[in-house]
């Protein structure tokens, strides 16, 4: 079936006998926003690292666009236009905000092995980069060093860098974690706009954000799929409620 963009079969990752991800079958439909939720330690982030090949699964298969990508390198996954973000803000700290986006654009448009020209010649890409910064509201800070941004703004920059790759599949690892209330809404708004014409897989703790964005939700618990469906179905599932009861989902 071709409208499944990303699929896993019996995906398993064990660390010294403990199965952090335990036989997960996941199918992300093309063009959908698919959320992965679950209490702490459910294996969401491990799952994410497996999908982006930052970890190699102990067993099981991963298919992207119908092709078996289980043994691929992480950079190759990115070159297949599957771009991830990280749970901690992941930026290039010593570079300016603009350069952060430029370095991503450079990968997409080629020319990253050019060593004899000034980097100023990247100006042709600058317009596109500025457009992306405007999208996330960072255009005024374009020339600032990236490390001087506030936490929430760093996450916005990371999103702009991710979007610069024009990914067909975006994997966002807790994009609103650690953000203040205003930034959360702004980011959710941004993601829903960016999701147009794309497929998004998102790990998120903030359930209102999930309710707003996700077309489909998979609930993980102890490394296994507990429930799957739209928000209505999942949030009324007694096993899901039970898994969350008494669970302290840290991020406020």
């Amino acid at each position, binding site marked *: 079936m071709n409208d499944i963009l990303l699929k896993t079969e019996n995906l398993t990752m064990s660390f010294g006998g403990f199965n952090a991800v335990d036989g997960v079958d996941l199918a992300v439909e093309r063009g959908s926003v698919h959320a992965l939720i679950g209490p702490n330690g459910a294996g969401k982030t491990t799952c994410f*690292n497996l999908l*982006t090949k*930052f*970890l190699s699964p102990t067993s099981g298969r991963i298919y992207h666009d119908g092709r078996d990508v289980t043994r691929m*390198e*992480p*950079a*190759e996954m*990115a*070159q297949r236009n599957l*771009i*991830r*973000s*990280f749970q*901690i803000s*992941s*930026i*290039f*700290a*010593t*570079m*300016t905000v603009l*350069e*952060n986006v*430029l*370095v*991503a654009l*450079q*990968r997409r448009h080629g*020319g*990253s*092995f*050019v*060593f*004899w*020209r*000034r*980097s100023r*010649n*990247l100006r042709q890409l600058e317009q596109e980069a500025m457009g992306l910064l405007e999208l996330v509201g960072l255009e005024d800070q374009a*020339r600032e*060093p990236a*490390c*001087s941004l506030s936490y929430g703004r760093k996450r916005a920059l990371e999103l702009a*860098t991710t979007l610069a*790759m024009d990914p067909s599949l975006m994997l966002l690892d807790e994009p609103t974690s650690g953000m203040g209330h205003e930034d959360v809404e702004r980011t959710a708004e941004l993601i829903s706009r960016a999701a147009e014409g794309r497929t998004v897989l998102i790990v998120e703790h903030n359930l209102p954000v999930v309710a707003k964005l996700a077309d489909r939700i998979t609930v993980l618990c102890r490394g296994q799929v507990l429930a799957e469906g739209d928000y209505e179905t999942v949030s009324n599932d007694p096993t899901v409620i039970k898994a969350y009861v008494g669970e302290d989902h840290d991020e406020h």
Partner: protein
Amino acid sequence: MTELFGIPLPILLGQLLVGLINGAFYATLSLGLAIIFGLLRIINFAHGVQYMLGAFVSWMLLNYLGIGYGWSLIIAPLIVGVSGLVLERVLLRRIHGLDHIYGLLLTFGVALIVQGIFRNFYGASGQAYAIPSWLSGGFNIGVMYLPAYRVWVIAISAIVCIGTWFAIEKTRLGSYLRGANENPEILESFGINVPLLLTLTYGVGVGLAAFAGVLAAPIYSVNPNMGDNLLIIAFAVVVIGGMGSIGGAIVTGFAMGVVEGLTKAFYPEFSEAVIFLVMILVLMVKPTGVFGRAESLIEQISAPHETVRVSRQPRFLHGWIFLGLIVLLIAAPFFLYPIFVMKLLCFGLFACAFNLLLGHSGLLSFGHAAFYGIASFLFAHSAKVWGLSPEGALIVGTLSAALLGLVFGWLAIKRRGIYFAMATLALSQLIYFLAVRMPFTGGEDGIQSVPRGVLLGIFDLNDDSTLYVLVAVIFLASIFAIYRLINSPLGQVLQAIKDNEARAVSLGYKVTRYQLFAFVASATFAGLAGALNALVFQLASLADVHWSLSGEVILMTLLGGMGTFFGPLIGAIVVLGMENYLLFLGEWVTVIQGLVFVICVLVFRSGLLGTLAQQIKMKL
């Protein structure tokens, strides 16, 4: 006489015995390195010196206090181990949590200081330490004579190694250690004093090195340099075995000793190189090491970053600096001895080339002397023996460094972080051994009276001013080329990889390709510097390929400021100036260099120019 594979059996067994003895030292030292690395994430560069201390302390105990070998076996490792506890508490503690390279550089500085002090008091010649009477003599087992002391060394090291392995893998204390390795926070929450555990672990690792030193005292002469070569071999053993496993370090250590011994029986001329060749083979076939686990990118994601203050890069300022550099180059020979200025230029270029890697790509190579040296030798050989013109010889020298850089880079870049430093050091040591062995290098004499020749058939370089113009022009052009590279689109990618490797990967960059490119470029310019040096001094010598030169270029870069572009030039001037004007201090210069290392790592990580850059809020 009985023969095996054409080698008389007694000789074969004799070399096997020597191999087992060397293997015992390799195993004990790499075991100590592995324990320390496992918990503190520090490559203990002082390990060779601590081994030397073990031997010296037991020599002192005997000669000053009349305490014999038996007590020394216990007392010397205790004394040196306690010095390790102090070192950890006072110095290493302060850089906990910083990038791993700082631990390596700090312990390297400490090693220089200790070694310098001992060289001052005891010279480079050895002190004899007699085999204790109860271990002298031997047994005749028919096919060969077994000296008792050698059997004792093998047996007691094996017992100590296995005992340590048992303590770590099988006891409660060991499980704490392994737990602290995985997750110190959790262990802390169990009420275990993790800082104390770290200190004690370092002490034990150091004590093991000292123990090996005591064992070595009656076999080798007791001298300040006795640990140098052994340490580099221990690094190679660690790269071969992989740091992951304590048992692996022991097994690999003994195995490499035996391999070396057997090579001595069959192909004596290869014996010094064979461990490094095994290392190359392992890097090609199983880069994580025989017992090692794959290093995961996951660790890179959460790698702590030091707070970085970035300033804007005003190009007009850099234009003025380049202009100032030109003015200085014109003026310098009027105030300073031109040959000394040319030496500064060679080392300045070398340091800048090195910083292209360390400062701008985040890779610490501890083997850059190999590129400098091979270019120096091939320049000298092609100018003197082949009769090439100076421009031809410069090209031959530089290209040889580029080629070697490609090979080293391709091998070493498979290993991340700290392993990269060890692998490059071990690879460069292989080149050093080759340089010692190969007839064309002239061994200890080097290649002398290299003709300077006539450039392009027009400019006679025997004239010092003509030579100066050539060196100055090549220097400027190279510095500018490196500057351009760092500020090119490729330079941006390198910077991004240095800032955040995991993110760069997630954007689809195959980081090793870019790092390899930077490595080759850096090696090429380092080679050019080495060839120029040979042109200026009409000499290529073993000092050009020695690891201490690699240490010196690191010092220049660190002191000048590795986050800056122009810093290494300043660093080169200061370090060479120090060597030149403090010549009367003799070995104390090494001690001072070590102190500078320690101070830079502890409180002055931005370096001279980096500090200035922060003050004026501009990139330099």
